C-alpha cells in the first residue's frame, strides 16, 4: 500500500501549487490595511486630526485657556477669536484645544486600564467555576448601572473631577472586556488544537497565553475602538452635567454646558466642542467598523 504514495492520485506536496502569494497576510498587516481605505481611512483621519490638535494645543492656541481677555465678552467668531469668546472673556478655541487634551488624557488611561483589568478578570474567571461565578456576578453588577448613573453615584461618593471620570470609564469597560475574553477563552479551550497541546502537557496558563489571548486580540481591538468612542461621550456627558472636570479647567462637556444659555450671543461656543466630540465618536466608530469588517474578510 505504500505504493499509493507514487500514484498520480497521491498528493505530491513538492509539486503542489504554490499558494504562498495568495496567503493570508500577517495579522498586523491586516490592521493597517483596514485603516488605509474607505471607512477605516475616514475614521483614522478624524481621530488623527483631533489627536494632533490636542497634542499641539499649546502651539495652536493663541491664548492660555484660562486667560480673560479684556473687552472681549461673548463676541461671535471673528479673525482674532475663531470660535468667539465666552461669558468671562476667554477664547473658546483655546479652551476647546485644551479640553481635547483633558479628554485624551482620560481616554488613553481609563480605557486601556479598564480593558486590561477586564481582560485579566475574564481570563481568570475562565479558569475555575468558583472564580467564574464571582467574576460574572461582579460584571452583572457593574453592567446593571447605566454608565451615567454610575458616574453620578461615584461623584456623590468621591467627588467630581477628572479622576472620577476616569474611574467611571474604567469600571464601565471592565465587564465589557471581561465578557469578551471569557467568551474567547471558553470557545478556544474546546478547540482540538488546544486539546492536542493539553495532551502533550501544556498547562492552563500556556493555553491562555499562546492560544486564547492571540485569538482574542482582534475582537478586543474592535471593542477598544468602540469603547473609546463611548468614553468620549461619557466624559462629555459627565462634564456637561457638572460631575466631570471642574471649572475653570476646560473640557469639552463643560464648555457645551456653559454655552447653553449663551447660544444667541455666540453659537460657535457650542458648535466648536460639539464638532470635536462628533469627530472623535464617529472616528472611533468608523475605525471599529473597518477593523471588524477586515476581520470578517480575513476570517
Amino acid at each position, binding site marked *: 500500500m505504500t505504493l499509493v*504514495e507514487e500514484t498520480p492520485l497521491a*498528493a505530491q*506536496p513538492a509539486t503542489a501549487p504554490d499558494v504562498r502569494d495568495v496567503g493570508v497576510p500577517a*495579522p498586523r498587516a491586516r490592521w493597517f490595511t483596514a485603516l488605509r481605505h474607505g471607512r477605516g481611512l475616514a475614521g483614522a483621519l478624524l481621530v488623527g486630526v483631533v489627536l494632533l490638535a490636542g497634542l499641539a494645543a499649546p502651539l495652536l492656541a493663541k491664548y492660555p485657556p484660562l486667560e480673560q481677555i479684556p473687552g472681549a465678552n461673548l463676541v461671535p467668531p471673528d479673525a482674532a477669536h475663531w470660535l468667539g469668546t465666552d461669558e468671562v472673556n476667554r477664547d473658546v478655541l483655546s479652551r476647546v484645544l485644551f479640553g481635547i487634551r483633558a479628554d485624551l488624557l482620560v481616554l488613553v488611561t481609563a480605557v486601556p486600564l479598564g480593558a486590561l483589568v477586564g481582560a485579566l478578570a475574564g481570563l481568570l474567571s475562565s479558569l475555575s467555576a468558583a472564580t467564574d461565578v464571582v467574576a460574572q456576578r461582579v460584571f452583572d453588577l457593574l453592567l446593571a448601572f447605566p454608565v451615567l448613573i454610575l458616574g453620578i453615584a461615584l461623584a456623590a461618593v468621591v467627588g467630581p473631577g477628572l479622576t472620577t471620570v476616569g474611574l467611571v470609564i474604567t469600571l464601565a469597560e471592565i465587564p465589557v472586556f471581561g465578557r469578551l475574553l471569557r467568551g474567547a477563552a471558553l470557545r478556544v479551550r474546546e478547540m482540538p488544537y488546544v486539546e*492536542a*497541546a493539553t*495532551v*502533550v*502537557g501544556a498547562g492552563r496558563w500556556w493555553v491562555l497565553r499562546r492560544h486564547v489571548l492571540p*485569538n482574542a486580540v482582534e475582537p478586543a481591538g474592535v471593542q477598544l475602538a468602540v469603547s473609546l468612542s463611548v468614553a468620549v461621550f461619557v466624559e462629555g456627558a459627565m462634564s456637561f452635567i457638572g460631575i466631570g472636570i471642574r471649572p475653570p479647567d476646560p473640557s469639552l462637556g463643560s464648555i457645551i454646558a456653559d454655552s447653553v444659555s449663551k447660544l444667541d450671543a455666540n453659537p460657535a461656543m457650542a458648535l466648536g466642542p460639539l464638532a470635536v466630540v462628533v469627530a472623535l465618536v464617529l472616528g472611533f466608530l468608523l475605525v471599529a467598523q473597518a477593523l471588524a469588517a477586515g476581520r470578517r474578510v480575513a476570517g
Partner: protein
Amino acid sequence: MSGPSAQPAVSGPSAQPAVSGPSAEPTVLEIADLRVGFPGAVAVAGVDLTVRRGEVVALVGESGSGKTMIARSVLGLLPATATATGSVELAGTQVVGADEAALEALRGSRAAMVFQEPQTALNPVRTVGWQLVEALRAHRPIPRSAARARAVELLELVGIPEPERRLRSYPHQLSGGQKQRVVIALALSGEPDLLLADEPTTALDVTVQAQILTLLRDLRDRLGVAVLLVTHNMGVVAELADRVVVLHRGRVVERRAVPELFARPATDYTRDLLASVPALPEQRRDAPDPEFGEDALLTLEAISVVYPAKRGRPAFRAVHDVSLAVRPGEVVGLVGESGSGKTTIGRAAVGLVPVTAGRVLLDGRDLASLGRAELRAARRGLAVVHQDPAASLDPRFTVGESIAEPLLVHRAPAAPARIAALLESVRLPAAYAARRPGELSGGQRQRVALARALALAPRLVIADEPTSALDVSVQADVLALFDDLRRELGFACLFVSHDLGVVDRVSDRVAVLRDGEVLELGAPGEVFVDPRHEYTRALVDAVPRVPARATS
C-alpha cells in the same frame, strides 16, 4: 405541467420513445455539455449525462470534482455567483436559464432533493406530519385531511413503523435513520420522476446506511423513480447504482455500467480511486502475532465514564467497564457506531475526561494519582491527532509554530532544522513551515497535525478518526504515511474510527464497541472475517463492498 408520472401503479414503458441506448425506458434527465463556472474557477467543464426512468446513476468523485454542482444545477439551485451554460433537460424542460417560476414548477414535482444531513434538512420546531402536509399542499391544493392521509402513506412507503403516531413526532424524537427516511418521504411528496440524492448516507452509521440503501433500491423498483446519486463512497455505488459517471476536476473521466467499472476500470484515475478504498478482508488472515513485549504501555482497568445529569437531561453512561491494554508499538483500533463510546475511551486514556470508575495506567502509573508536574512529565510521551483538519491547527499559528508547540511546552530545542525534519517526515517540504493552516488542503493539515504529534517522539498516539474528513485517495496517502512512521518510530496507537476498512488496515488488534462496552477484541483478520458477536457480524455485513477487481 403534466400529471404525475411516477405513480406506483404506473409501470412499463410510456408512449415516449427512448432516446438511445439499450434501455427502452424514457429519459428523465438529459444533461449536455454542462459548464458551471465561478469567478476565477471552473467547477464543471462540459459534462454529458443521461438518466432514464427507474435507473440509478451515480456521480462519483472527490471533493472539488463538481459532482454536487451538477446535481444542484438540475434544480437551478446553484450559488448566486455561479454561471451555468449548456443544456439540462429535466422531463423535457430546459432548466439552464429558466426563470424562478418555471424552476419552482419543476422542483419537487419533477425532481426532488434528498440531502446529506437529515438533522438540518428537517425543521426542528415542526412535527413530521406538519412538514409532510405542507410539502404536499405546496404541490397541489388538496384538503388537509387528504394530505394527512397521503402523509401516512408516504411514511409507510419509506418504511416507518406506526406512521399515524409518527406524524405527531418532532424530528428530535426520531433516530438518524428514521429522519433520513422522513427526508426521503418529503422528497417523494411531489411524486418526482427523479431523486437527487447528495451523499444521502454519509452522515449515517453503517448499519443505518445499509437500510437506507435498501430503501432507495426498493423505491426505485416499486415506483420506477430514477435516482441521481452523488457520492464519494465506491461501496455505496456498488450497492445501489446501475451506471457510474466518474468525475475528476469537472470532467467525466469514465462512464460505465457498475459491474464493468469495478471489474475493469478503464482509466488510471478510477483504478486509483478503487485501490484507495480500504476494503475489509474476505478471508481469515492468520497473522503471526507480532511481538510487542509483555509490559503494557497503556492499561485501561475496567474504566467507566458517566457524564453527569445536567439541566433535566439524565446522566449518560458513555463507557461501561472497559478493560484494554496497548503494548508498546501496537496499534489498537476502536470501532463502533456513533454513541458507542469510542471517542470517550480515547479521551479518557490521555486524561482529557476523568474516569468515574476504574483506573487508567500509563506505564503502570495511575494517571489520576499523578501530581501536576508528574502528569506533565508523563504526557511528554503522549500525543493526539484529531478528526477535523480545519480545527486541529490554531489558525493564527504558522505550520512551524504549530509543530514547535509541543517542543516549547517541554522546553526542548525547537530549531528550524528540527521543524524541517518533522515536516519532511510527514512528506511535506520544509518551506511549509512559514505557511498558515488556511493555505493548506485538508490532507496537508492532517499531515501537519501528525508532525506535531510526533514532535516529542511519543510512545502513545491517540488518533480520533484522523482520516474520516478526507477524500479517499488522500486518506490512503495519510494511512500509508501513518504505517511508515509507525514502523520507523515504533509508537503505539489507539486508533478510533467508524470505518471498519480503515481500522483493519492499520490495527494490530481491534476492539468492537457498542453502547460503551467492548463486545469483541482480537486481530482484525479474525474479528472482521469471523465475528463471534452478532453485532460485529451485522456491522461487517452492513459495510458496502467494493467488488474485487479482475486481475489484469
